[in-house]
């Protein structure tokens, strides 16, 4: 079911993880054991299916997680795009597995640093995840003290969040930059516009080979010819499907076509 509905492969090695994560679902739906839960799943109980999918997805994230990836976006990808899109002044970016929104808001902060909105740019920043609870958290934009301390310099915390008790809320200005939507990567990408940048980090690794190929091919379909794909630093899409080209000394950064000219921001 997990493979068919979410593309996630659960091997025997993960049985302990599965049991741990199903515990809260069993309590919530009143099942006494996993066998009765699995039996009900086979009957297609949709709310239960969604709860199991959400329980089985990994949602750990952090602001500016794997900092080098954000440096690559800021220093390599963005400068080239700002030149290439100077006539339209429009950028479309998609965080394909955004968890609770930290990745998307980290990008919003970097884009805001460049004052692009004030300069008349239109930024379409989409953030999707298969987990509806995570999307709701991203829309809420409220993070715990623990969450904001992993990845955010204190000065950025003060300028980009307001304190609410022991929690911190993203400022309305940054909140408005991100459009959240619950979305399964197995479904059609048809609702998305042509994209300049796709972040699809630490998710392809959970898919079987067929699903991984399908997702990568469909990302290629909606990426602009000079568009960039960023995956996790330990992931690679080189030589897969349509063939993305890696960028030297930039782990996790791939271009759909080898860019004619890459501009690296000075300093």
């Amino acid at each position, binding site marked *: 079911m997990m493979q068919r509905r979410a593309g996630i492969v659960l091997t025997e090695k993960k049985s302990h993880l599965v049991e741990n994560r199903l515990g809260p679902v069993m309590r919530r739906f009143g099942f006494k054991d996993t066998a009765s839960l699995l039996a009900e799943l086979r009957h297609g109980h949709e709310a239960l299916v969604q709860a199991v999918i959400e329980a089985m997805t990994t949602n750990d994230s*952090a602001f500016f997680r794997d*900092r080098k990836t954000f440096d690559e976006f800021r220093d390599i990808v963005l400068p080239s795009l700002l030149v290439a899109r100077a006539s339209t002044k429009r950028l479309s970016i998609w965080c394909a597995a955004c968890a609770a929104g930290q990745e998307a808001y980290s990008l919003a902060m970097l884009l805001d640093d460049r004052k692009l909105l004030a300069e008349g740019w239109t930024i379409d920043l989409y953030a999707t995840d298969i987990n509806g609870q995570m999307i709701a958290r991203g829309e809420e934009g409220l993070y715990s*003290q*623990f969450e904001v*301390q*992993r*990845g955010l*310099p*204190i*000065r950025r*915390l*003060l300028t980009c969040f307001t*304190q609410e008790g*022991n929690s911190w809320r993203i400022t309305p200005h940054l909140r408005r930059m991100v459009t959240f939507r619950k979305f399964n990567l197995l479904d059609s990408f048809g609702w998305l516009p042509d994209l300049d940048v796709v972040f699809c980090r630490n998710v392809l690794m959970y898919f079987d080979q067929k699903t991984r190929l399908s997702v990568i091919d469909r990302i290629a379909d909606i990426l602009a010819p000079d568009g960039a794909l960023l995956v996790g630093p330990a992931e690679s899409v080189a030589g897969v499907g349509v063939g993305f080209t890696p960028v030297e000394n930039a782990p996790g950064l791939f271009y759909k076509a080898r860019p004619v000219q890459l501009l690296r921001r000075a300093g």
Partner: protein
Amino acid sequence: MKTCLVVDDSRVIRKITCRILKELAFHTVEADNGEEALVLCRRNMPDVILLDWNLPHMSGVEFVRSVRAEKNGSVPVVLFCTTENDVSHISEALGAGADEYIMKPFDKSIIEAKFSEVGLM
């Protein structure tokens, strides 16, 4: 190996913090108040100072101002590590010369993240 001075009047917090710092390959020195910490700094300025806000004799903010006024007082990276978690305290600490701010409770992942922010890892 870089040296981190841990200034906190709680022996338990100092012990937990020093254990984490040793795992991160830092040499640790401890002080339970600001005056003692200032003496240690004058004797041998550390690379990093992890500092509580509420200390006997001298507050954490007074200590930072005193350290920064020393001849080589710009050397150490100063991170507050405190339960004083509101914006006004954070702003005051940064204004006094602190580089980063850790809000208690903390764990190893937060210390690692904050040390990365200030280029210590």
